[in-house]
């Protein structure tokens, strides 16, 4: 019997080892490396591998850091609110208003079509649309709504958030749609039979049951927005900054240690946000 047990232990370890190995090699080691480098120093030509708090000192001592982190969180919050609103509505429509499964699948696929092109192209295509002489402005002017082209449409927080919402709403739609499809229809019937109005059914039955989907979507959107640098750079015309751009600037100037320090702080911030989110919903239990 004891031999069998050791065998079971052994095969357990063996089964787990490939994944462990992959994670150690491609997740733990790189992050450990970033943390190590963040304590180093760099000049233009060389990296000095000696322990120092200088990077963190500068990071926490500079008002720019706080402003930029504030900006990053602002983007994340606003984008989250919009993607949640739109994503939930779209998913609700697909799950409860579209009757046949064929149509559900067809419409769901329709949502994914924009994803067949690169996300940078989808983002950049907004630029000629929103520009001073772009489609949006010429439409507004010819409709007589404004006399002068509206300047804040492009290269502003508005355009950044618009692009984010456009890019990431699907990440909200998919998990919410998924959880909605798993809701037992008899629960909704029961709610109606019990005399609940449509709105009460929504708030008391559907939303609580969709929480895991909402949470997964939230994690997607928040991490994507907080880690982004391309969208902010192009849609704000380099006029706004978020943490990703701070890191990108450092890398362009070969300041790898300083970039690592910023990355570590960002990583911790994002992990804290996710930690808080997971307090609300136990995704594992609900999946």
């Amino acid at each position, binding site marked *: 019997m004891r031999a069998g047990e050791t065998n079971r232990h052994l095969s357990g370890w063996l089964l787990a080892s490939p994944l462990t190995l992959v994670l150690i090699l491609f997740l733990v080691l790189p992050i450990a490396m970033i943390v190590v480098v963040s304590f180093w120093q760099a000049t233009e030509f060389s990296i000095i591998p000696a322990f120092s708090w200088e990077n963190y000192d500068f990071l926490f001592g*500079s008002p720019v850091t706080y402003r*930029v982190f504030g900006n990053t969180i602002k983007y994340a919050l606003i984008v989250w609110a919009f993607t949640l609103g739109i994503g939930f509505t779209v998913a609700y429509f697909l799950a409860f208003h579209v009757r046949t499964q064929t149509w559900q699948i067809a419409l769901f696929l329709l949502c994914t079509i924009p994803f067949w092109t690169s996300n940078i192209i989808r983002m950049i295509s907004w630029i000629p649309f929103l520009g001073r002489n772009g489609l949006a402005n010429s439409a507004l002017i010819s409709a007589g709504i404004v006399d002068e082209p509206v300047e804040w449409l492009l290269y502003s927080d508005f355009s950044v958030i618009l692009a984010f919402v456009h890019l990431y709403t699907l990440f909200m739609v998919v998990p919410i749609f998924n959880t909605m499809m798993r809701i037992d229809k008899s629960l909704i019937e029961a709610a109606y039979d019990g005399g609940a109005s449509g709105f009460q059914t929504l708030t008391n039955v559907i939303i609580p049951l969709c929480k895991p989907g909402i949470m997964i979507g939230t994690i997607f959107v928040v991490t994507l927005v907080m880690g982004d640098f391309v969208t902010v750079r192009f849609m704000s*015309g380099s006029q706004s900054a978020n943490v990703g751009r701070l890191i990108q600037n450092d890398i362009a*100037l070969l300041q790898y240690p300083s970039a690592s320090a910023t990355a570590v702080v960002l990583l911790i911030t994002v992990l804290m946000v996710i930690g808080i989110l997971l307090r609300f919903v136990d995704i594992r239990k609900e999946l």
Partner: protein
Amino acid sequence: MTTKKLSRRGLLKGAAAAGAASAFPAPMIWAQNIKDVTLRQFGTGVSNLNEVAQKVKEDLGFTLEMTALDSDAVTQRAATQPGSFDIADIEYWICKKVWPTGNLQAMDVSKIKNYDKIVGIFKDGKLTPESTIAQGTAPHTVGFTDGPDGTTFASEQTNWMTLIPTIYNADTLGIRPDLIGRPIETWAELLNPEFKGKASILDISSIGIMDAAMVCEAMGEIAYGDKGNMTREEIDKTMAIFTEAKKAGQFRAFWKTFDESVNLMASGEVVIQSMWSPAITAVKSRGIDCVYQPLKEGYRSWGGGIGLSKNLSGLELDAAYEYINWYLDGWVGGFLMRQGYYSAVPETSKNYMSENEWGYWFEGKEATDVITNPFGDAMAQAGEVRDGGSFEERMGSVACWNAVMDENQYMVRKWNEFIAA
């Protein structure tokens, strides 16, 4: 059998080479060996053109491998990986950083055939005897060293050159005359509230700060000791003026890549901005009016050159000198000048340009016929004149050279704050 066959073929090849060598003397003499030489060149892309490598293969027989990187990567590689290249195609301000590391070797001026014809800017800093020397890292200040092993710069011409100048130009502001509708004469116009929300500056700190300094000086706000080597106080003041303008909404956007600058201008988002010469041409080629506006304060200029790695010796070194002499012989010069850049030895480039091209690009004369670049795109129509005029007019009014400051790190941090403001 096989060995015999091979050796016979080898023999034939040798004979052919010998025949060729006797028919075309000079560089062909060691044609047999030099064919095996490969020189690895890396640089910033402006002059790292595949056409040049192809022509080298045709004319000189050896292989030139080109790698294009951005200027930060170039600097790092030249400074830290001397074994990874044979020829460094770098800007003069990069040379100032890299030369002290000892990774490049000085070049023997007596081996450079056209040395006497190289323009004065790269020798004594003066285009004409009356010229004054501009601020910043003027090429001649880092162009010479004391001896074959010198690691410091000589204050005057010596027999040892650090870089052989290859390409240079004078930069200024680009404008959309059709949208501005009045003459623009000074750098100060970039911050003129009239262009609120319609101005742009490039987001590359080392160059952007120079353009910013040109503007602040033109506004009469700051008098710089040396715009190419600012003090912390000067950097702070400059960035304060620009941050204030940014917060007031003066800038539509900042650009980092060539394409962005072209699109901003062509779409009319921006009517005045810092720009590079080929970008102006790209806007014009879309049929949009765009001028590389000469300004009374002068130009911000830049120059590049090729340096030899410390590790080059023997046949490779000979090949490299051959390459340098070929570079200054005119074909490359003509190729670059027909794109709007200048060659270090304009005289020889003239042989590779038509009279019309030479008149338009160099002498500032009216084009007598369509001007096309080496890739066949029309650059100007008959009757047009180059913005800024002749070589002497343009290069004669350089106010400042691209530079690296002692306070570089501080400047970069301040620039980042400006972008994040």
